């Protein structure tokens, strides 16, 4: 089995699972309990918070554990808007965000907010001039992802933060870093990111856990109310094994550069072989450092991506398609559409995403099987 869909989710690290097990079976106390088991649980929570804060180089009081990227993005956007709603009504995001950001922004469209979506160019990069023009003194929030989940384009968050701060002193800058953490350097303080979201299962941690960093002086209000856990910002009994798991997963990123080099080598190899073996192939991302090292997005002419996905699946190779079913336009990738990719390329777009567990041999085999599958399908589609 060759798993190349690591942007969707990753295999958990064994050390993560071992660490979590203890908190399922032995130290399963509720961190809010007053007895010793509660205290043990609380200590584990604190340790994980330290691990995450250390990795992001921030104060541990700025880290809140949530259920994952979706909740993190929802909490960030809603609470930021709530905080600033008296100062203005304009909110800005990009056209290629993950649905857990886009859909939240859409929900404000008919609620008296001026919602602005910044375009991207053909390569998937934000039009910074458009951002400059869109920013005004009514703008209260900008949310831009650091790494795109489909093509891997890295947005210049440092530059974006600078542009925002030059134009507005109170506009909050949120960045969805779910695909960035572990693949590109992420330092909210030095980059000027006010709120940052990331998720456990994209970095070999467990599903159902994520974390959100909120700049110390923002003092955001919660959107979930209850027992007042997480300093009142996110009520609900803490997912203790998950928290321990994300802590250990972050610890595993200490060999960051080594892992990134490995991902980059896999990607370069894949590009080299694909160029050599396949005709009628179009690259929607490349091996330059403008793109995250773990994602490669390609389009193949005269084939439907879902068909290729299933042919590879039959050979125990798992990848992702850039559009679900091409007979339904609305299921085509909004990211590729925003990049102005023609429909015929969107139909045949595939996302291959790597992790530390993949090898060069796997990449060679994948390309070989992909070529076989493409040839097979083209037998039927190129008979004009």
């Amino acid at each position: 089995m060759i798993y190349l869909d690591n942007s969707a989710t990753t295999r958990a690290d064994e050390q993560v699972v071992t660490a979590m097990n203890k908190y399922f079976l032995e130290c399963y106390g509720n961190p809010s309990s007053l007895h010793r088991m509660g205290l043990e649980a609380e200590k584990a929570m604190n340790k994980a918070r330290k691990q995450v804060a250390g990795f992001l180089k921030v104060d541990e009081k700025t880290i809140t554990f949530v259920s994952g990227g979706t909740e993190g993005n929802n909490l960030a956007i809603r609470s930021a808007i709530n905080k600033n709603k008296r100062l203005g009504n304009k909110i800005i995001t990009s056209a290629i965000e993950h649905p857990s950001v886009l859909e939240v922004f859409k929900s404000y469209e008919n609620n008296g907010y001026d919602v602005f979506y910044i375009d991207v160019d053909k390569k998937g990069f934000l039009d910074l001039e458009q951002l400059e023009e869109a920013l005004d003194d009514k703008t209260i929030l900008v949310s831009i992802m650091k790494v795109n989940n489909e093509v891997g384009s890295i947005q210049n968050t440092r530059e974006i933060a600078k542009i925002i701060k030059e134009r507005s002193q109170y506009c909050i800058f949120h960045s969805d870093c779910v695909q960035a953490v572990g693949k590109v350097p992420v330092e909210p303080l030095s980059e000027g990111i006010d709120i940052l979201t990331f998720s456990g299962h994209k970095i070999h941690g467990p599903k159902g856990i994520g974390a959100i960093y909120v700049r110390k002086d923002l003092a955001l209000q919660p959107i979930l109310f209850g027992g007042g856990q997480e300093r009142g910002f996110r009520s609900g009994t803490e997912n203790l094994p998950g928290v321990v798991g994300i802590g250990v997963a972050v610890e595993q990123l200490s060999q960051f550069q080594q892992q990134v080099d490995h991902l980059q080598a896999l990607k370069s190899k894949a590009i080299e072989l694909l160029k050599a073996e396949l005709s009628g192939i179009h690259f929607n991302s490349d091996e330059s450092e403008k793109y995250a090292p773990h994602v490669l997005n390609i389009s193949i002419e005269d084939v439907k991506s879902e068909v290729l996905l299933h042919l590879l699946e039959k050979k125990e190779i798992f990848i992702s398609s850039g559009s679900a079913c091409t007979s339904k336009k609305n299921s085509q990738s909004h990211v590729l559409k925003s990049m102005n990719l023609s429909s015929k390329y969107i139909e045949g777009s595939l996302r291959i995403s790597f992790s530390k567990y993949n090898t060069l041999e796997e990449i060679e085999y994948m390309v070989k099987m992909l070529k076989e599958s493409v040839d097979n399908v083209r037998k039927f589609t190129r008979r004009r």
Partner: protein
Amino acid sequence: MEKVILVRYGEIALKGLNKSYFVDLLLRNIKAALKNLSGLKLEKIQGRFIVRLAPEEYDKAVAALQKVFGIVSISKAYVIENDFEEMKKLSLELMGDQVITEKTTFKVRSKRANKAFPIKSMDLNNKMGGYLLENNTNLSVDVKKPQIMFHIEVREKTYIYTDIISCLGGLPVGCSGKGVLMLSGGIDSPVAGYMMAKRGVEIVGVHFHSYPYTSDRAREKVIELARIMSSYTGPMKLYVVSFTDIQQEQLLKCNEKYTTLLMRRGMMKIAERIAYMEGAMSLVSGESLGQVASQTMESINATNNAVELPVFRPLIGMDKNEIIDIAQKIETFETSILPFEDCCTVFVPKHPETRPKLEKVLEEEAKADVGELIEEAIKNAEILRF
């Protein structure tokens, strides 16, 4: 006092000498629909069935009965002896001042099927109405549009109820023979199957897939659709047939413009063979005139020509929105719109022929050698039961 469900049937009550056949079939279908509920007892009375169950099963039974074709309406009723004092006591339990605490209009409607009962229906209406007015100051009578209709049916026993729940009507499944439905996984075909089942047709499903070009999910989707449909059609068989080899042969050897039509002809031929195996006398398809290239009048002619059995197309004159409305009502819509490739979408010709000439279609069809492949496909079909 006992609680039962009264079941009324419509169209079949008008049948002539063979009425008992329809009634017994409906009774069998009701039994099958309620077979998992405890304490089930069914009784036939004149023009009605009485359903008895363990008290906790009533709501489930009401939901299930609302999906059985041939039933016009049902009521949750209380059964008591034919005794006016008993009736008064029960009426207070249902409509007394403890129960109805806001201003409400009502009307009593009695039916005296049992002429041995001494009070005539008009008198019973008046007496019971008067009694209720005396005992609940919130009630007032409105004979035209009452908020509550208080029904009293005096038969071998007395049945009292206040609600009549409309059901689907139609004919009991099985009374109109069997039909083989081409179940694609789209929005239309489950609706077509539902509509034929409503006219009493027992449905056998056939689904074609193009594994490995299509996915396990597409297959799971159709299995789920068959499961939902079977709550209306009763026990249903589904043939899952691999169309890959036939499709590849046609794609390789025939003019691309005709491949969709030829594929449909191949599917019809297989469906007809299955119909003969199953003792079915018709095919059923979800085609709606002009909806897509393969559903123009010329294309329908070209595919129809592949088989001898009649092909029922209950959606032929419906707009997509009308079809979607029914799909939503029968709860197949959400499953149908799951976006997976199926064998009809995997290799879509760029410019399909919309006005095919039959001789040209036959000429193209002859180029592909699919006879044996069709035999193989039928032999290897997977049969699922719901």
